[in-house]
């Protein structure tokens, strides 16, 4: 199929004239497409940004690390009954001790309470009228820093004595340290947390992942695990265990080892399902993939509906346009336009109409995502390919829904069209 350059130019010029000549009508017509594309671009940007954060958070766990939890996103997403999950036995300090003694593949076990767990344990810290934003409050054991990516910058970490005495001492994350003390030395200061006075004994370094995840990753405060119960009472009974494998031990071996120890401890028969979750970096990433994929599918379904509505709007307005321009079509045919010339003219018009809607949607959607970033520093990602797909896809919608009106125009009889009043 070949078309003269002049013809392509004419087709584009007429599409532009027609759309620009009916600005308001064009905008209203493509509202559905604008909404659909705005939705896709905004949510995609947020999910993509969130994905980078989550993935790097998961990866900060390290490939030699396993997490043992009463229940987690893993058992929740596998569709188990929530009450069964709640009724699972709590994990305790004693479980940690048993694993240290019996699991030969395990190098170290650190224990923590709260921290990304359920229910969330959060609160603000106060110092002389200054206050922080909501912090993640995590109760930890003495060897907590042995696994994971956190490092001490100032002061000291918790000791066995702190544990035994349930001392009111805490270690601040980088974000609250800056918020309360700026450049001053925080060590030894007295800070209020959930109505209790605490002494600051240490401050953490800014975490590596905060470059991607933002300040959120440093928005935390650590207290001794034994002290955590003073803050959160009975529901603080359940712990999360973070285990690191001995040098050279494959993660699968450690997983079998720990699972065996825990099954024996909980008295499970071979045919019974585990009543705890054992998570590796890979399994967590896999779960996150499944969640974000499901999210995308819902998004695609919703925006398809919007695009469909937009497409029908395009079809309706193109039918109006064809009727309005019946005489013009007759004139063009009299002057030598073939069916295909008329067909392409109207297809170009509906495609440009829909593509314009797509471009507006991309601009709106990325503005929303950027606005969210400015307001909350929530990380967003604006990949160029999502723009290309958005605009390309809306053009396709325009072409698809433009076929019927364009075909109708192309088949008009020139004599009838010229007589049309």
């Amino acid at each position, binding site marked *: *199929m*070949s*078309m*003269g*350059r*002049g*013809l392509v*130019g*004419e087709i584009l010029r007429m599409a532009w*004239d*027609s759309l620009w*000549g009916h600005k308001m009508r064009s905008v209203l017509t493509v509202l559905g497409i604008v909404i659909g594309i705005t939705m896709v671009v905004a949510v995609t940007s947020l999910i993509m940004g969130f994905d980078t954060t989550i993935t790097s958070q998961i990866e900060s766990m390290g490939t030699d690390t396993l997490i043992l939890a009463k229940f987690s996103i893993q058992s929740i997403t596998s569709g188990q009954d929530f009450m069964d999950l709640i009724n699972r036995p709590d994990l305790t300090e004693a479980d940690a001790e048993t694993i240290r003694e019996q699991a030969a593949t395990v190098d170290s076990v650190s224990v923590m309470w709260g921290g990304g767990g359920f229910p969330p344990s959060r609160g603000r810290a106060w110092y002389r009228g200054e206050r922080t934003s909501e912090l993640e409050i995590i109760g930890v054991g003495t060897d907590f820093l042995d696994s994971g990516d956190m490092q001490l910058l100032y002061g000291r970490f918790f000791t066995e004595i702190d544990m035994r005495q349930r001392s009111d001492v805490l270690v601040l994350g980088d974000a609250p340290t800056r918020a309360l003390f700026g450049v001053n030395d925080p060590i030894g200061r007295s800070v209020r947390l959930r109505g209790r006075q605490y002494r600051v004994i240490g401050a953490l370094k800014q975490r590596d992942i905060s470059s991607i995840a933002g300040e959120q990753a440093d928005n935390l405060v650590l207290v001794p695990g034994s002290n955590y119960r003073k803050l959160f009472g009975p529901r603080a009974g359940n712990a999360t265990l973070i285990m690191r494998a001995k040098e050279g031990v494959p993660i699968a071996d450690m997983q079998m080892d720990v699972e065996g120890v825990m099954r024996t401890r909980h008295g499970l028969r071979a045919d019974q399902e585990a009543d705890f979750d054992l998570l590796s970096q890979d399994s967590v990433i896999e779960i996150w993939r499944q969640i974000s994929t499901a999210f995308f599918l819902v998004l695609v379904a919703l925006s398809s509906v919007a695009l469909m509505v937009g497409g029908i709007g395009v079809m309706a307005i193109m039918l109006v346009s064809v009727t309005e321009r019946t*005489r*013009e079509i*007759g*004139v*063009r*045919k*009299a*002057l*030598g*336009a*073939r*069916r*295909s*010339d008329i067909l392409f003219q109207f297809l170009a018009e509906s495609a440009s109409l829909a593509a314009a809607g797509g471009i507006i949607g991309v601009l709106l959607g990325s503005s929303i995502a950027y606005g969210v970033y400015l307001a909350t520093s929530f990380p967003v990602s604006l990949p160029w390919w999502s723009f290309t797909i958005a605009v390309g896809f809306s053009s396709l919608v325009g072409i698809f829904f433009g076929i019927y009106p364009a075909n109708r125009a192309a088949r008009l*009889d*020139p*004599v009838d069209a*010229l007589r049309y009043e």
Partner: protein
Amino acid sequence: MSEVEAGNDPVATEVVEQPPSPQPDVPAATGNMIEARGLKKIYRMAKVEVRALDGVDLDVMPNEFLAIMGPSGSGKSTLMNLLGCLDTPTEGTYKLNGTEVSGLDDDELAAVRNREIGFVFQTFNLLARATSLHNVELPLIYSGVGGRNRHQRAMAALEKVGLADRADHRPNELSGGERQRVAVARALVNDPAIVLADEPTGTLDSKTSHEIMQLLVGLHENGQTIILVTHEDDISGYAHRGVKVLDGLIVSDERQTPRFGKD
């Protein structure tokens, strides 16, 4: 689909290869621009049958200036549409510039119209949003003429009708007479075999009508074949030959001395 290009099209090639027509009433190599035989156009409605054309024979030689006359509803426009290849006859044959066109499909007819016919309509039929230049360029666009060549040819056609200085004006910025001049320029731009003008002065005052007719007279003097449809006697008076149509039939066909010449 292929580009429509003058001198390189299937229709023209066909003419060269076709043996002379064996029909005795159509002498070979007459050089006729138009040879129509037994043209009928019958509209079948729910109850009635309208015989808009009921068997018309017509020959037109190159450089004739022909006026088709008749009262309203007599079939003038129907005949014009057939001669202009906008429509196909119910019966009969039509040879235009040596090509039998009654069997052609829509796109082939479009190509013939583009190359052989220049239309001038009663209501001008210019595209409202396009400039004069762009309106005149349209036939060239559909024959695949691009770029500077197209621009030059369109400007030359506008010069012929004396409107080169209105190239950038849109129709609503022009007077009725000027609009019809632009339409004439558009009809001429592709160097058509025939200019077909259906009541070209129907909406113009008598002074402007006279100017438009003078323009057509000038084209005829330069060798253009022109067929004019009108129901006004003083307008048909510009032509050299008068064909009277009544109830779908040609009732008289006479040479005439133009009553109006160039001033």
